[in-house]
């Protein structure tokens, strides 16, 4: 159960990355930094409002919007001028962005460890099959599928979602049917980054919020989208489940080597299906 709830956080972050990777064809290394900004923003908003129920729920709502605003500014001011460039340039750009955002977080929030409390409603645990299980993890188990359904509805039932699926395959032809691809890319990028911010806000009551949390998540998110299938949202879900569950099984059965388990699973998955378990859009 703990593995599943960890998988939900990983899914929310990696689905955002997968969306950007699938539509814009950009491996956004700064995705982890936006996750970190989401967590720090949640801390600031929650602290500003004095914590408690209202503080947490407003932080959960506003922190991803802060991240979306940051990503919108970055996309419109800088990123949108680079889409025609080769992939290496885009990769270098997002790498530079990661360093800049990391330093900005340090300037703004400092290098101290921060933490926020889950709201009173989600504190404590309940017993499932005789074992205690944190209520907050149950909340994560509810949010994860809701995000998955929301993303499915977005990509399959909205016009902009259908356009983004078309742009993932042939952006030139999307332009030739009268659609301004630049705005489709902007919307997709902002949505992907919103999910990174949401992941950061959701994870904030469960870990210490600190510099460097971006590096951990970006590596995990990249591996998840690679084993799931680049640009495939359901692949991100499968990859997250594999990653989260193997991590927990490692802790349960062989704690000294727990960190190795998910990476071993990645090696096995990529040996079995080098292009990802589900269909890659690349």
């Amino acid at each position, binding site marked *: 159960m703990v593995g599943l709830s960890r998988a939900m956080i990983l899914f929310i972050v990696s689905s955002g990355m997968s969306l950007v990777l699938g539509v814009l064809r950009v491996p956004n290394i700064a995705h982890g930094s936006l996750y970190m900004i989401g967590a720090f923003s949640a801390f600031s908003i929650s602290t500003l409002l004095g914590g408690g129920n209202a503080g947490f729920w407003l932080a959960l709502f506003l922190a991803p919007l802060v991240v979306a605003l940051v990503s919108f500014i970055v996309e419109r001011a800088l990123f949108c001028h680079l889409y025609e460039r080769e992939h290496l340039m885009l990769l270098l750009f997002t790498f530079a962005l990661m360093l800049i955002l990391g330093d900005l977080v340090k300037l703004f929030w400092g290098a101290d460890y921060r933490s926020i409390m889950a709201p009173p409603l989600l504190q404590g645990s309940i017993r499932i099959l005789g074992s205690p299980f944190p209520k907050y993890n149950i909340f994560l188990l509810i949010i994860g599928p809701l995000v998955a359904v929301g993303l499915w509805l977005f990509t399959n039932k909205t*016009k902009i979602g*259908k*356009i983004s*699926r*078309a742009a*993932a*395959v*042939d952006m*030139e*032809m*999307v*332009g*030739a*049917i*009268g*659609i*301004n*691809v630049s705005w489709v890319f902007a919307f997709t990028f902002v949505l992907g980054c919103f999910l990174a911010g949401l992941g950061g806000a959701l994870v904030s009551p469960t870990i210490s919020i600190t510099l460097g949390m971006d590096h951990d998540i970006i590596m995990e998110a990249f591996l998840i989208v690679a084993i799931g299938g680049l640009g495939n949202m359901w692949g991100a879900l499968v990859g997250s489940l594999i990653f989260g569950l193997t991590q927990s099984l490692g802790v349960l059965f062989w704690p000294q080597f727990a960190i190795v388990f998910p990476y071993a699973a990645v090696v096995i998955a990529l040996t079995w299906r080098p292009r990802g378990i589900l269909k890659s859009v690349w």
Partner: protein
Amino acid sequence: MMLELQNIHTFYGLSHILFDVSLTVKQGQIVCLLGRNGAGKTTTLKSIMGIAPPKRGKILFKGEVVSGKAPYILCRKGIGYVPDDRRIFADLTVYENLEIALRKREGRQQWDIPRVFELFPSLQKFSGRKGGLLSGGEQKMLAIARALVGNPECLLLDEPTEGLAPAMVAVFRDRIRLLKESGLTVLLAEQNVKFTLSLSEYAYIIDDGRICHQGTVAEIQENEAIRTMCGI
């Protein structure tokens, strides 16, 4: 004049593809651009559509210079594009392919999804099927239907009969005639001489990136020497 190309030169990287190409298409006409493989037909249409914009020369649409504008702006101005390789969105259903291209325009005869289904009934039959699972002919129909629901004034049709069985070619001939009767202006790039000349009023022949001859269909039909010279 609906569409006018004035001495355009187009490059792919350092390769010079189109040399001083000029042509005009009047409103309501079907004008054809004939040429063998690699002659420059597709590049001409891509230049008009802004996908391969010309480095020199001008393109005018309804008197306005449009060269250098992005494809989405040209589509919104009223140019529809049907590429030779269809380029339908394989992961989207037939209906979704049409739905995202749908564009209503004031004061113009409206093409919508039911109307293109009337034009190509087999598309309606497969409306829930993914575009990538259609046959080549059905994909061509979908590519034309997708351009039509954008309600263009001028349609750029690139080799609609390429790779089709003769029966299907006849179907396309009928449909393109219907489009002309509806008042649509068409620039048709083809290498199927018989098909093209049966539909068009005026023809340009392109070879090695240059317009090597132009004239009425009757002139070209009667003049075997021109056709041989231009390699069609």
